[in-house]
C-alpha cells in the first residue's frame, strides 16, 4: 500500500498511495464530489451512487467512493464530464421522488447535503407523478433519537456506524427494495452512549436528536470551537448557541484525538435552561442561611477568616475535583501554596496513600501513550479502567485497534469491560486489590525465564515473598498470566499500558504497571476519569507534587517554583484529601474548588464538611458540599470561560467561551486573584500572565524512570463480610453535571447488583432478585444481575446510579471495601 500512483482528476495530477479511493484523491485536490453514503471513517459502501464519475476507458460511470485509483487513471468529475453530471443528476432525481420535501420543518434544513445538492444541481420540478412511500413520522428509536423514514436516503451510514464504529448493533436495515428502512427492534431501543453521532453523520434529516428537536434552525446558530471536559478523552467539539444559550453540541474533527465522534454525555448533557441549583451570586452563611451578598463582601469575609487562620498557623485544606481548566488549576495551586502557604492540596477523590507520586512525577516529565500509539500498537494492556464508561472515545479507539488493525488487548481487573467481547481481547479476572500480584507474576516471567533486562533492585523486588501470596489471592490461573507475559514479550516496546485512575486504589499496582512499561520500553498512559484531572495534576494540586510534576521534597525543584511565584513554599509534603477530611475539625479553613467531598466520600465527606470550622466552596452548583459551606463563590461553567484543557494523553487544547456567564459568576482564576488581593497578596490577574508562568514551569522531557515498587499489602479477609465491592461511576449517572439533561438520563442504565453466577447460585440468588449489600459504612438493596465477567467473590454496584449508590458503601480507609451480600 506504500507505493504511490499518479492519477489525473479533472485534468489535475496528483500522486497518492495505491489503493486510495478516487473520492479521497479528489478531496486532496479540493475537488468535491457529492456523496451521501460515503464517509471516510466507514468502509466503502457504494449504495447511494451520487458520487459517480467518468473514468477514461470505462463505458459506464463509476462510483468514486468504491473505486481505488490505479496508475495513470484519468478521472473526470461533474465539473468536466457530461457523463458524470448526467449520472449524478439522475441519482438525485431518484433520491427525491420519495422524499417528503419538508425542509421548512426539518431540523437538518440549512445544513443538509441533500438540500444543498438539490439546490445546486437538482431539477426545479419533479417528473414523478406517482405515489410516494409514506411512513408514520417520526419514530422514536431511543429516548434521544428520532427517525423519519420518509426523509431517509438509505445510505446506511447510521447502521454502518453502529456496527463498524460503536458496536451497538441495535439499528439495522429492515425489509428490502423500496420498502427497505432503518429500524430498531420493537423492544430493543437504540440505546448507545454514542447514538448522537448517527444524527451528525446522517446526510439528511432522517435522524434527529430529541434535545435539539425544533430548538433552532441550523443556519441561525453561532458556533464556537470547544473542548469537552466531562471526561479525560479530550474531544474537540463545536458548541452552538442561540440567543446566548447552548442549543446543541457537535463533534468536531481531530484525527489525532476523537476523530469525528463524541459520546452522548458530551453531546447532550448541557443543561436545557438555567438550573435552579446553579450558583449565580456569592452567598454567605448568615444565621444559618446562605444569603446573597456582593463579591466584595464575600471576598472580605474570606480574607478575614482565612487570614486569621493563616496567621495563627491553623492548617488550611484545599481540594479540587477535576473540573478545572488548566489555568484555573494552576491559579489554585499557586493560590494554595503561594498565598495560603498550605501543602494540604489534593484533587483526587480516591483514597491514595501517596505511592503513586513517583509515577506521576516521572510520567508528567516524559512522553506518554497517545491515541495514535494505541491504534498502531499490537498489544494494549488495560488496567483499572472501563473505557466505555470512563473515557468513551478511548473505547472507540481501542475498538478500532482491535477490529480494524487486528491488535490484541489484555485487561486485568475484577470486572470485564465491554471491550472483552471484541475480537483479540482477553479479560483476566482477579480479586479486587490483587492486580499487583498478577502484574508482578507477569513481570517475574518476563525477567526470569524470558530474560528481560532490568536493574537489580527491580529484579530483587520481584522475588519478594509478597508476590506469590498476592498472586494466590488473585484467583488467576497460570495460563492467562503466561499468555499475557508472552504477548508483552512479543510486543516489547510497541506495547501500550493504560492505567485508569482506579488502579491507584489497588495497592502497588500502579507502580508495578509503570515499572513494567519502563522495563519494556512500552508507552504508558494514565487515564483519569475527570476532564480536569490531568491539568490539576500538572498544576500541582497534589500533596506531594509541585507544578510540572516537581516533587515537593526536591529543594532544587522547589526553588524553581519559588522563583516564579516569588513566595516561599512549605518544604513538606501535604496530606491527601482523605487525611485532610478526616481531621477537618482541626482545619483553619477548607477550600473546595469544584470539589464535592460530601458526594464523593458520601457520609464521611459530608460530616467532614460539617466539621470544618470555615468552608469556602467555589462551584457551579449548590452541591451536597457547597450547600454546607460558609461561603459559596459562583464559578463559571465549561462553556462560559476560555481556557485550556489537557486530556489523558497530556495533549492540551485551548477553547473559547461560547455563552454568557450565569449571573455574577467569575472564572475560578479570577476569583482566586480577587481573594489574593483581599488577602493583600500579589497575583497574576490576566490569563496570559498565568499561561506565561506555566510555560516557564514546563519541564523538558526526560526518559521515564522506574520507581521503587512498594511491597504490596495482602487484602485482609473479613469473616463477617466475605465479598469485595467493585464500584465506579458509569458514564451516565446521577452526577452533578448531568442533572437536568432530560432525555439523556432516560438512557442511563438501571442500576443492578452484579455478581458472578457461581456466587449467586451459592447464595440462592436468581436474576432480578433483590440483593442486600452491606459494608461497615452502610447498606443498599438492588436487583441482582448475573455476569460471568466478574471475579468470584466480588460484587459490582455502580457508584452513583439513581436509586442505587454504592458510594454510600465505600470505606474511604480501605483499599477494598468488604461487604456482606445476601438475598433481601
Amino acid at each position, binding site marked *: 500500500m506504500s507505493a504511490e500512483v499518479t492519477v489525473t482528476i479533472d485534468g489535475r495530477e496528483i500522486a497518492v498511495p495505491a489503493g486510495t479511493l478516487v473520492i479521497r484523491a479528489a478531496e486532496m485536490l479540493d475537488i468535491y464530489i457529492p456523496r451521501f453514503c460515503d464517509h471516510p471513517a466507514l468502509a466503502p459502501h457504494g449504495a447511494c451512487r451520487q458520487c459517480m464519475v467518468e473514468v477514461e476507458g470505462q463505458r459506464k460511470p463509476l462510483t468514486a467512493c468504491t473505486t481505488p485509483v490505479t496508475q495513470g487513471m484519468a478521472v473526470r468529475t461533474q465539473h468536466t464530464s457530461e457523463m458524470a453530471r448526467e449520472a449524478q443528476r439522475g441519482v438525485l432525481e431518484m433520491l427525491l421522488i420519495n422524499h417528503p420535501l*419538508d425542509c*421548512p*420543518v426539518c431540523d437538518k*434544513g440549512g445544513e443538509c447535503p441533500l438540500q444543498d445538492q438539490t439546490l445546486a444541481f437538482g431539477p426545479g420540478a419533479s417528473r414523478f407523478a406517482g405515489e410516494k412511500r409514506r411512513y408514520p*413520522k417520526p419514530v422514536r428509536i431511543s429516548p434521544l433519537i428520532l427517525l423519519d423514514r420518509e426523509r431517509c436516503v438509505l445510505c446506511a451510514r447510521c447502521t454502518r456506524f453502529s456496527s463498524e464504529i460503536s458496536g451497538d448493533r441495535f439499528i439495522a436495515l429492515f425489509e428490502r427494495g423500496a420498502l427497505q428502512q432503518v429500524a430498531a427492534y420493537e423492544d430493543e431501543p437504540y440505546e448507545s452512549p454514542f447514538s448522537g453521532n448517527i444524527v451528525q453523520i446522517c446526510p439528511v434529516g432522517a435522524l434527529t436528536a430529541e434535545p435539539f428537536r*425544533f*430548538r433552532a*434552525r441550523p*443556519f*441561525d446558530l453561532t458556533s464556537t470551537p470547544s473542548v469537552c471536559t466531562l471526561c479525560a478523552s479530550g474531544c474537540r467539539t463545536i458548541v452552538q448557541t442561540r440567543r446566548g444559550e447552548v442549543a446543541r453540541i457537535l463533534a468536531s474533527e481531530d484525527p489525532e484525538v476523537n476523530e469525528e465522534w463524541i459520546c452522548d454525555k458530551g453531546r447532550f448533557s448541557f443543561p436545557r435552561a438555567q438550573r435552579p441549583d446553579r450558583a449565580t451570586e456569592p452567598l454567605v452563611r448568615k444565621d444559618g442561611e446562605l444569603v446573597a451578598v456582593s463579591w466584595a463582601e464575600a471576598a472580605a469575609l474570606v480574607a478575614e477568616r482565612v487570614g486569621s487562620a493563616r496567621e495563627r498557623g491553623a492548617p488550611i485544606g484545599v481540594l479540587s475535583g477535576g473540573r478545572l481548566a488548566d489555568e484555573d488549576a494552576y491559579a489554585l495551586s499557586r493560590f494554595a501554596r503561594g498565598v495560603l502557604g498550605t501543602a494540604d492540596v489534593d484533587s483526587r477523590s480516591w483514597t491514595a496513600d501517596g505511592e503513586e507520586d513517583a509515577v506521576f512525577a516521572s510520567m508528567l516529565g516524559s512522553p506518554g501513550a497517545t491515541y495514535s500509539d494505541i491504534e498502531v500498537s499490537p498489544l494494549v494492556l488495560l488496567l483499572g479502567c472501563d473505557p466505555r464508561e470512563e473515557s468513551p472515545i478511548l473505547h472507540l479507539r481501542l475498538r478500532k485497534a482491535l477490529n480494524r488493525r487486528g491488535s490484541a488487548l489484555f485487561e486485568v481487573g475484577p470486572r470485564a469491560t465491554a471491550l472483552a467481547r471484541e475480537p483479540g481481547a482477553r479479560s483476566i479476572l482477579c480479586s479486587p486489590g490483587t492486580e499487583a500480584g498478577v502484574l508482578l507474576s507477569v513481570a517475574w516471567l518476563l525477567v526470569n525465564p524470558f530474560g528481560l533486562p532490568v536493574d537489580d533492585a527491580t529484579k530483587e523486588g520481584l522475588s519478594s515473598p509478597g508476590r506469590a501470596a498476592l498472586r494466590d489471592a488473585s484467583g488467576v490461573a497460570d495460563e492467562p498470566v503466561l499468555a499475557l507475559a508472552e504477548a508483552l514479550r512479543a510486543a516489547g516496546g510497541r506495547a501500550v499500558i493504560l492505567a485508569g485512575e482506579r488502579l491507584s486504589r489497588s495497592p502497588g499496582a500502579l507502580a508495578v504497571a509503570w515499572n513494567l512499561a519502563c522495563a519494556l520500553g512500552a508507552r504508558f498512559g494514565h487515564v483519569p476519569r475527570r476532564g480536569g484531572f490531568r491539568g490539576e495534576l500538572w498544576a500541582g494540586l497534589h500533596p506531594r507534587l509541585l507544578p510540572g510534576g516537581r516533587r515537593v521534597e526536591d529543594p532544587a525543584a522547589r526553588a524553581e517554583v519559588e522563583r516564579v511565584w516569588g513566595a516561599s513554599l512549605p518544604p513538606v509534603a501535604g496530606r491527601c484529601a482523605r487525611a485532610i477530611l478526616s481531621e477537618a475539625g482541626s482545619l483553619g479553613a477548607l477550600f473546595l474548588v469544584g470539589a464535592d467531598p460530601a458526594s464523593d466520600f458520601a457520609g464521611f465527606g459530608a460530616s467532614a464538611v460539617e466539621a470544618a470550622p470555615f468552608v469556602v466552596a467555589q462551584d457551579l452548583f449548590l452541591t451536597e458540599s457547597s450547600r454546607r459551606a460558609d461561603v459559596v463563590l459562583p464559578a463559571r461553567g465549561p462553556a462560559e470561560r476560555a481556557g485550556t484543557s489537557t486530556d489523558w494523553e497530556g495533549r492540551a487544547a485551548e477553547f473559547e467561551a461560547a455563552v454568557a456567564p450565569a449571573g455574577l459568576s467569575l472564572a475560578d482564576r479570577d476569583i482566586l486573584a480577587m481573594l489574593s488581593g483581599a488577602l493583600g497578596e500579589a497575583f497574576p490577574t490576566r490569563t496570559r500572565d498565568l499561561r506565561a508562568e506555566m510555560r516557564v514551569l514546563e519541564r523538558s522531557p526526560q526518559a521515564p524512570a522506574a520507581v521503587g515498587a512498594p511491597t504490596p499489602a495482602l487484602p485482609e479477609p473479613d469473616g463477617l463480610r466475605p465479598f469485595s465491592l467493585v464500584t465506579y461511576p458509569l458514564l451516565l449517572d446521577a452526577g452533578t453535571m448531568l442533572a437536568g439533561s432530560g432525555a439523556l438520563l432516560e438512557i442511563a442504565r438501571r442500576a443492578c447488583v452484579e455478581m458472578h453466577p457461581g456466587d449467586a447460585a451459592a447464595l440462592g440468588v436468581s436474576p432480578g432478585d433483590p440483593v442486600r449489600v452491606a459494608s461497615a459504612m452502610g447498606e443498599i438493596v438492588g436487583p441482582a444481575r448475573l455476569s460471568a465477567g466478574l471475579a468470584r467473590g466480588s460484587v459490582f454496584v455502580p457508584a452513583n446510579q439513581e436509586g442505587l449508590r454504592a458510594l454510600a458503601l465505600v470505606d474511604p480507609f480501605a483499599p477494598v471495601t468488604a461487604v456482606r451480600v445476601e438475598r433481601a
Partner: protein
Amino acid sequence: MAVVDIARSLLVTAKHMFRRPVTFQFPEEKKPFAARYHGRHRLNRYADGLEKCIGCELCAWACPADAIQVVAAENTPAARFSPGERYAADYQINYLRCIFCGLCIEACPTRALTMTHEFDVEDDSREKLIVGKDRLLAMEKALGEEGAG
C-alpha cells in the same frame, strides 16, 4: 409693484379656497390602499382553525432588520396547533425594527404570514410594539382572506 405681487399671491390663496381639500378625516375616514400595500403583518389559519405557521423560522432568517423571533415546538395529539409536527410556540414581530420590506412574507412556505393594509404602528411603550403571536393571529379582520402576500 408690491401690490401686484400681493394680489398674485392672494390669487393663489383664493384659487385654493374653491378647490376640494386633499385632507381627509383620518382616523374617522380611511382611504383604500393599493391591493399589494404592505402594512402590518398577520398570521393566518386554515379553515379548520389550525394555524398555518409551522414555526420554520424562514421569515426570521429572511428579515434584514432582525425584527422577527420564532420559537418552535412540537405538536402533540393533546395540543395541536398546526398540521404536521412543528408549530410556532412563540412568534414575535418587533415593530420598532420592522422596515415593512415584505421579505418575510416572501419567505413563508405556507402563506402563514401575510401583510395587511393596517399601517398605524404607534404606541406608548417598547413592549407594546413587540407584537406577539396572539395579536398577530387576531389581525385577521384587517384585510380580506389572507392579506397581501
